[in-house]
């Protein structure tokens, strides 16, 4: 059985160190600009921070992956090319790309650089993945969170590259790289500006009875009663009123987190090479606890034991977790 790599989020240098210290095989991070799909204010790395972060990871036997996984607007490719060049120069072990132009630039300008295909590319089929592997030499695909384990196994048999899949964290079933809900409401693009539900447009309004109203721009996304669980302020997790409904309902998805702990052995058997933990926007406390828990779980299954894992429910969105499409496609 091949030992799967545990790929962990690093939104800040402190989180990077926390992830490495907790047992990450690899960390993934991005620059403080629109070149990565977690371009949130106060997050991410400057050039010196990334250089130090990569050195920290390498000194401890971990890899550092750089996400350059958003899509450059027309005529504005310079920033993405610079990010690719900087990532190579600083010694990133792989660049995680989504846009075919960025992939082409990286593949031709830096042919020795290892490339991974971001989940943002939204490549769920043999044909799509082969296109990236054949054209750009992609070595690993991060699969969208819409595939069952038998489907992953079938892909593995035919695509000829490594498979990375999410095992914990945000459970977004909107087609990655294609969602324009934020763009519709705020004018900023998740895919090109790298920010879903920009915090500058988010408003939380709590009344005297502790009922919470969540707004993005002019749109009310949810009204949560006192004591009710909250989720991220994304449109796809909002609860809306509709003429045919008495109360607000989750029109797209519910606030819930992915947790595939019980399925780890099946994922390994299906050919998954790397397990990815979502959460670059989360704190170092999250990174430390979650990475340590999954480190233990992966080590357990490699030693033939049950994937015993700490209960991570307290870290989940809305205090709910799901196996999502990995178990079945009957989630809706």
């Amino acid at each position: 059985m091949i030992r799967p790599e545990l790929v962990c989020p690093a939104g800040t240098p402190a989180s990077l160190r926390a992830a490495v210290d907790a047992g990450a095989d690899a960390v993934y991070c991005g620059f403080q600009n629109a070149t990565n799909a977690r371009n949130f204010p106060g997050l991410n790395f400057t050039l010196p921070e990334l250089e130090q972060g990569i050195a920290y990871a390498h000194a401890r036997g971990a890899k550092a992956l750089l996400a350059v996984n958003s899509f450059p607007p027309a005529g504005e490719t310079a920033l993405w090319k610079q990010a690719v060049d900087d990532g190579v120069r600083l010694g990133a072990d792989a660049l995680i790309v989504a846009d075919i132009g960025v992939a082409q630039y990286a593949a031709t300008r830096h042919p020795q650089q290892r490339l991974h295909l971001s989940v943002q590319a939204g490549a769920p089929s043999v044909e799509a993945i082969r296109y990236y592997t054949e054209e750009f030499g992609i070595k690993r695909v991060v699969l969208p969170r819409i595939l069952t384990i038998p489907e992953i196994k079938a892909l593995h048999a035919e695509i000829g590259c490594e498979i990375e899949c999410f095992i914990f964290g945000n459970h977004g079933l909107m087609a990655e790289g294609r969602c324009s809900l934020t763009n519709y409401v705020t004018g900023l693009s998740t895919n090109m500006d790298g920010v879903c539900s920009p915090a500058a447009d988010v408003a939380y309004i709590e009344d005297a009875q502790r009922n919470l109203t969540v707004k993005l721009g002019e749109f009310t996304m949810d009204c949560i009663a006192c004591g009710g669980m909250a989720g991220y302020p994304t449109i796809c997790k909002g609860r809306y009123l509709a003429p045919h409904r008495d109360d607000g309902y989750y029109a797209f998805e519910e606030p819930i987190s992915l947790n595939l702990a019980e399925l780890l052995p099946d994922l390994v058997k299906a050919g998954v090479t790397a397990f990815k933990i979502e959460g670059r926007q989360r704190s170092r406390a999250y990174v430390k606890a979650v990475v340590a828990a999954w480190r233990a779980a992966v080590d357990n299954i490699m030693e033939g034991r049950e994937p015993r894992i700490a209960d991570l429910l307290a870290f989940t969105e809305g205090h709910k977790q799901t196996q999502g499409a990995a178990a079945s496609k009957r989630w809706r």
Partner: protein
Amino acid sequence: MATDLNASSIRPAAPGAADALARLALAPVPLFLMQPVLGRIVRRIARLRPEIFGRIGPHVRKSFQIDPVNMPFVLVLHPDPANPRLCAARRHAAPRPDARIAGNFLTLLAVADGRLDGDALFFTRELVVEGDTEAAVCLRHALDDLEGSIADDVADMFGPPGRAVLALLRRVGTPNEGR
């Protein structure tokens, strides 16, 4: 799924002895006695950890209200690198901030300490964010990126007694952490 830990191990403890201790210790303190100490604290943090201002970014001129809801005062922070200020105010008399972050005293301490996850606390409504969400998020990330603990920095200012009080608050406040 097998379970080694229960969820409470990564959540703040319910307000209890430490909460009562802190409230008892701080409630009778006139605010004017706290102000010079708070000023020293924020200037020390700014001197020791100037990188914090980079992540707060365009929001360094804004005002943040840190509201320990079970204490008889709020803290008002101006993270201006040229003139960082931190002062206490009575809740009813506090100036309207650009952003407000509220929660139980021990919860806020644990977040500042890097021991609890702000998002998880927000999900459970134990942490409240109001006003300028982006400014609050930047402050959160800036604090979270600091190596070690701001609480340790503050405790160090008061020598062994300060460190002893902090150790007590941590021990009583989060009894299951790390198990």
